[in-house]
């Protein structure tokens, strides 16, 4: 007996709008497999020439950082202002630098 409740797996969709820019997350689609996910992503997210390339990946395959890890991951860079060019003082009247 088939499980009537069994829904197709979820895929995340990333679209490159044109060559020269990165793929950007657009949303998700359900599909039986990656071929169908590609077709569905095309129909759902690129009806108005929004894409020149599509990536689909099963949502379950994505490893995401936890919101609780935000401080541990990103705060260490907050006090490293010397990584930015504005940290350095150079004469204003310098014509080239």
């Amino acid at each position, binding site marked *: 007996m088939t499980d009537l409740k*069994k829904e*197709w797996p979820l895929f995340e969709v990333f679209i490159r709008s044109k060559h020269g820019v990165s793929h950007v997350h657009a949303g998700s689609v*359900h599909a*039986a*497999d990656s071929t*169908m996910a590609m077709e569905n992503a095309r129909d759902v997210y690129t*009806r108005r020439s929004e894409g020149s390339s599509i990536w689909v990946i099963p949502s379950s395959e994505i490893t995401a950082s936890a*919101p609780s890890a935000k401080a541990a991951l990103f705060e260490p860079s907050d006090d490293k202002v010397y990584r930015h060019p504005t940290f350095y003082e150079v004469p204003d009247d310098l014509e080239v630098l």
Partner: protein
Amino acid sequence: MDVHHEDKDMRARFDAYVADEGKVEPKDWMPDGYRKTLVRQISQHAHSEIIGMQPEGNWISRAPSLRRKMILIAKVQDEAGHGLYLYSAAETLGVTRDEMDEALLSGKAKYSSIFNYPTLNWADAVIIGWLVDGAAITNQIPLCRCSFGPYGRAMVRVCKEEAFHQRQGYEGMMVLAKGTPEQKAMAQDALNRWWWPAIKMFGPPDSDSPHSDQNTLWKIKRFSNDELRQKYLDMVVKQANALGLTIPDPDLKFDEDTGHWVSGPMDWDEFWAVVKGNGPCNRQRMKHRQKAHDDGLWVREAAVAFAEKQAKRNNQQKAA
């Protein structure tokens, strides 16, 4: 540790963050009430898009020209797309597509009552674009800034596409309103039937709306029902005038002091009767949705069987 106390702190921090226009993403901590109200609102919004395909889909095979047929097919396809963007946004909150489908089919979840009115003739098919999509845009533009990221992002896409829906509808009405006396009469008749349901799309008056206050604090709702209705009324009166059509409200008047149009009394008993399932098409809409769901079962099963077969074959080829 006092867990309850901890929750209260989290809640206070969340409320302050959102009040300060902070955006919330799916994995962030959020109060249960916030999650619940968003699942309810986003899924019902998605259901409205899906059920909303029916009244216009009804006219695809009988559109008056090939041009109109192409436009209508594209529009109905967009509505399906809008439903899918929204289901996708709701799923980030932990609800599954199956649960949402089940809620719609069992009648537990509602959809916009506007789709429980019939499209009796071609004028009805185009007046939906003008009046119904016009109201939807008024409602959805502030939702682009919703505190919940995925909902706001879905609304940005939807609003871009709704602009086409509204313009094609207004153009379609213009053709009728500037056409033969019979065509103009058809346009006026459609306006007579759709006017009140359209301005009631913004929901009950503020004095009688159960969800507004908390949703306003959480930056889900930016304007009250009555404020949105006022914006809409001021726009749509001008649009009707440009068509040379008469809004079927004998009490409609312009208030010189406020610079706004004032509508006559709205029949909220009729509104609640439709919400509760007794509109002209509630049963027909649900029956059709159920049939589409049932008829699609073999397709869903066959797709899974095919995917499994392909995966097995690929594995065998790899092993060989």
